[in-house]
């Protein structure tokens, strides 16, 4: 910790004249670990807008493991089968252009097999509303019919990284991860204490660390 941090200037609420004009919006992030693989739930973040959400998603979820693509979906576009998330009324580009309100548009379907499992992309359905998309998913997608919970989101509302856009780290930063740190510690033990001392160390109450 740098000494400079002992002198961080205090921020007084009174010095900020402007009130926040909007809240950060929640986005759910999915990562695709290999080409043509499904997108897997990775976590949430909050951001002011779509572009900032993607910048942050790439930093938080794309860079500590190799992945080939990231999806970010604003929560207000997600309809969940357990009623937790209600999507705002869907508007498709096609519907707006043709003037027809009932035209079909593609929705991506994500399922959670059991409570606590991660949500996995399982396919897509065409529907004219989020509620209809949920019904269609349950009747046409085998994984959805048996799932603990289903999310659907209009394909057009999913933000995605460009193909080939680099997101994972190219330098070794495993020290940032618990497993990287313990590996380093283990190597040091080997170097200085030999195999027997390492065994003794592993047998004591810290062995969980290895």
């Amino acid at each position: 910790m740098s000494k400079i941090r002992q002198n961080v200037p205090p921020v007084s609420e009174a010095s900020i004249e402007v009130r926040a004009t909007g809240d950060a919006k929640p986005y759910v992030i999915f990562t695709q670990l290999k080409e043509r693989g499904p997108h897997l739930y990775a976590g949430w973040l909050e951001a002011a807008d779509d572009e900032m959400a993607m910048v942050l998603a790439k930093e938080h979820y794309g860079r500590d493991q190799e992945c080939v693509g990231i999806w970010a979906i604003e929560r207000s576009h997600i309809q969940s089968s357990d009623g937790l998330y209600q999507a705002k009324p869907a508007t498709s580009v096609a519907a707006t252009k043709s003037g027809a309100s009932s035209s079909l548009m593609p929705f991506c379907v994500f399922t959670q097999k059991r409570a606590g499992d991660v949500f996995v992309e399982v396919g897509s359905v065409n529907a004219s509303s989020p509620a209809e998309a949920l019904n269609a998913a349950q009747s046409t997608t085998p994984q959805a019919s048996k799932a603990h919970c289903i999310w659907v989101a209009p394909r057009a509302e999913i933000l995605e990284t460009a193909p080939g856009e680099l997101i994972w780290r190219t330098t070794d930063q495993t020290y940032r991860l618990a497993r990287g740190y313990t590996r380093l510690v283990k190597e040091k033990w080997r170097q200085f204490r030999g195999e027997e001392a390492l065994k003794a160390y592993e047998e004591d109450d810290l062995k969980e660390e290895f």
Partner: protein
Amino acid sequence: MHEVPAHLIEPLKQLLLSIADDKLMLGHRNSDWTGLAPILEEDIAFSAIAQDEIAHAQALYELIGSLTGERADDIAFGREIGAYRCAQIVEPGDGFDWGVALVRQLFCDHFDAMRLARAAQSAYKPLADLAARLVAEERVHVEHADTWLVRLGRGTGESHDRLQRAVYQLLPLAPSLFEPVEGQDDLEQASLYPPSADLYSAWRVEVGTTLERANLRVEFPAQLPTERGGRRGIHTPALAELLDEMCEVYRTEPGAAW
């Protein structure tokens, strides 16, 4: 080219030091924001970017070590202040002013990405390969800086004014990035680094475009200064303070392998 001619090893080392030292100091300064950045999501992102820069510096110090036989730790932490080759813009703290931190990122990340893209054309293959790998990450940093600048520049009157003040505060230091290292002409003649006389004008176009999108005013100096600066070992007192702290542990036992 896999072997560097003997008379070009020292100039190449100077060039690699200038890239690595910028990254090490910037990474060190920016890591001070961990736990203090304006929002949680950015706290994590900014800390990760700071660690990227330090990791890039490490890779470059290792490349120098492959030419000279030195250890990366000794190069990073074991030099006298006059042997560092960072530009003066990366030396001072930002006073925990988020505007200053972001504008410095804007100036330095654009420069760094352009410099690495050029290094990726080096005739010395190990440098070209490493630079090609690092520039891809540096472009992510550029996107991060641009996104923030445009958001805050077009945000409220206060966020705009704070960035504008930061632009004027850092502008005099920006040319420090472009000072050539000792022997750079020799490197350019041998195609170890592309000719870089046009780098400053190319950078002004890139950075100027982002500043314009952010509704921020800027008047870059038309000419670069010619006096010696950071690239030739002339540094500000801020760097001495930074090094005293950053190298404190190393100096307790310089030969130790951590």
